[in-house]
């Protein structure tokens, strides 16, 4: 067997090993309910911001506390606490991906990823205004 082939085998083996360990890093999209069944672990939850309830951010009180209510895919609503400032255009987000964990009744979140509406929809809204 040629050395090159041995090296190739080694590389393939390492790659597979790395990928297998990597998959362990991957998370899954959960709901608040499944996230609370194993509290203390971090999850990603896709949810929609509940705009009927107040969002709270007051830099004078605490510059690193933003709280709001979010509804997950199963329809459950939870209070979400984020340790940071209120993200720009938060109100406009179609949906948000929250990374964090359940603590008591609240979802403590350390990252918010917003999905913004498509450009085309924005076009329509703006034209509506022009008229």
């Amino acid at each position, binding site marked *: 067997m040629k*050395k*090159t082939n041995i090296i*190739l085998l080694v590389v393939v083996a390492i790659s597979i090993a790395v990928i297998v360990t990597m998959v362990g890093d*991957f998370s899954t999209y*959960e709901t608040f309910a499944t996230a609370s069944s194993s509290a203390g672990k971090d999850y990603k939850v896709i949810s929609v911001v509940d705009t009927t309830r107040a969002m709270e951010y007051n*830099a*004078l009180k605490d510059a690193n506390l933003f709280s709001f209510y979010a509804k997950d895919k199963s329809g459950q609503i939870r209070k979400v606490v984020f*340790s940071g400032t209120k993200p720009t255009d938060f109100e406009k987000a179609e949906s948000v991906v929250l990374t964090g964990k359940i603590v008591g009744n609240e979802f403590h979140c350390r990252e918010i990823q917003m999905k913004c509406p498509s450009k085309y929809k924005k076009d329509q809204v703006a034209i509506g205004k*022009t008229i």
Partner: protein
Amino acid sequence: METTFIGEHLIPGQIGHFFAVLSLVASLVAMTAYYNATRATETATQLSWQRMARWSFVIQALSVFAVFSALFYILYHHLFEYKYVWRNSSRNMLTAYLFSSFWSDQEGSFLLWSFWQSILGLVLMRTAKTWERPVMTVMSFAQFCLATMLIGIYFFGYKVGSNPFALLRQTEENQAAPIFQLKNYLDFVKDGNGLNPLLQNYWMVIHPPVLFLGFASTIVPFAFAFAGLWTRRFSEWIKPVLPWALFSAMVLGTGIMMGAAWAYESLSFGGYWAWDPVENASLVPWITLVAGIHTLLAYKSSGQSLKITFFFFFITFVLILYSTFLTRSGILGDTSVHAFTDLGMTQQLLWFMLAFLVPAFGLMIYHRKAIPTVHKEESTYSREFWMFVASLVLLMAAIQITFTTSIPVWNKILNGTGLMKLFHMKDIAPPIEPVFHYNKIQIWIAIVIGCFTAVIQYLKYKETPKGYAWRKIWLPTALSVVFTVLIATLEHINYSVYGTGFLIAIYTMLYASVYAVVANINYIIGILKGNFKAAGASVAHIGFGLILLGILLSSAKKEVISIDNMKILDGYFAKESKENSRENLMLPLNMPMQMGNYHATYVGDSIVEGDFKTYYRVRYEKTDEQGNVTERFTLYPDAFINRKGAASLVANPSSKHYLTKDIFTYLTSLPDPDAYKDTAQYVAHDIKPGDSIFFSQGYMVLRAIQPHPETKNYKPKDGEMAVSAKLDVYSSNNQEQYKLEPVYFIRDSAYQYNVDDTLSAMSLYVKFDKIMPTSNNEAKVQIQVKDSGGTQRNYIVMKAMIFPYINVLWMGVLIMITGFFMSIVQRVKQNRRVEKTTNTRKHKPVQV
């Protein structure tokens, strides 16, 4: 009946679209003609096909330039009847940012790509000689594919491409709108939608052209490799392709790092690299391209590694197309901060990718027996053997990054094939800590590659004499150990957030990157004897080592200094929980706050004429133990405040640059003007010039009463009589002095109006209410002042961090680019020399 609309300029759009279609047809003709020229056996037929091919490619290139100009024309003249213009620009933009508008959207960026590819094609036409026909066949095909992206014509009910010259009234979502039934609808479309303020930035003007030149140039190595297989000249293509591959790696690398610099300088991502899918997607092809260059060099000197070179050059361009697919198809929606949405071209992009992937790899498999290989086994003490291994390590890096970046694609595939249901799986989500996920794997690759970069060139091709390498390399190896220990102790590198294992990896990478730099410097001095002409590779390697070093130092020693210590005792966001600590600090106006070694004070905001940003002045002071100020500087982080919709903030950072570190500051929140009920009342003061009014934070003096005023809030009009009060405001908190000028005017001799003035830094509102009648002809005026309490309402929330040794990274980038450039020059010269000698050799038999 056709309605004619008033005020539309349809000619530039028609010209643009005509040339878009022409470029499509011409590229198709060029491809066919070049194909026939390659296949033809008789010289006369070859030449006639070639002539036709050249003409059509030139026409194709000129058409692309015409489309390019037409699109710029409509942007420059603000023709909002075109959707592209309306969607991406507005009248108040600076002209330079019209370029940002140009390539901010899909059509414009494909056009930019096509533009560069045309230029590269024209250069190849002149320089590729015997390679022109097959190489240009591939180039023309690529041009054809790009041209389909821009036509926007329906074929059998299937929309192909998107026409940048589509009219606003013709787009699907607008056709039914009542406004577009009006003949004079343009009277209502006065201004465009504008460009995202983040993109109104000089980096956005220069970064995309460079990046797209990088993208476009990867087709050249692909085309040469393909031509080599196709014409069965399996090894001759190596020489002409080398400078092109180097050029491509240089430009693509520059483009990527310009993106990093943009992210660092102007976006508030808090760094230069975040392992975002969009960044990854452009990095991966660069890695495979660099791997390809190295296997190519190995082949050139030893005859080994030819097959894998084909593989690398093919996969590089396919990965470029894959990255385009990822970013433009909207598939990344949930995983990237760059909010991309589906633009309805997913399938077309997929076909584009397959159109290159299938023939290239098909041809490679078909010719696998014919591709020359050396059957003798290479020595373990040879340069080519280890270059091959190194290229595989790079390939592993590429695979790992691609694998994680493609998570949304895996979800699609698993869902589409029904496997997900079968195994009761949930959608896979990206890692909870993406940066650490990549870092913990890539750091080992960086270590291996760093060491390889240092060592491999001390080996000789084919067989290294025993003891040779060691004799040459022991000195840099030992020196690197010394330097590493020095850096680690002097800089206190003790990044322990992720445990001891990761810290060991950091020390090892520190060694590897220092080793790469030192060994390559030693190589230039010791082996090349300072011959800089041949030192391109070593210089690029030094740059690469410095990049690794800069990345390591700046990330391991990055420190957020704007830590808000309030509530930290709660253990609410404890360090162990890995939740982000309280990194935002509120700075009330004029109140110094402790931040690391500094006292930071927010001292007010300011606006510059012709600029739509508000600049927030933050003064930093460093004091020694006696309390003397040792250093003082002011940073100006700025923000676009969108006053149209909900209070939204688009912030740009400001940094203080030192040689060894940067202090990086950006705004994360501003007071919402609507959030506070304003309870303060206006209080009237009757004063005459020279009098003063006191308020909570200082006093103001009425300097004069100004007839016929013109202020930033008031412009005189006919039939109006106006006066203004010139007020000087003195703050008791600092040495600042401000000016206010409220206006009072009478229109048509009957109606009284006033235009008030505000001083947001002090929440002060001033109104010129009336002119008081006095007995002794003395002018007295009534000024109403509302003092809303000052500091309570005026504050900023910001983040500040220290990036140490970020300059090492930037310097590394510049040096690496220089190294690439030196190599290109050297290889081009070498090729010319070889050409000359073969030419003279050819002539010799004639003389004999």
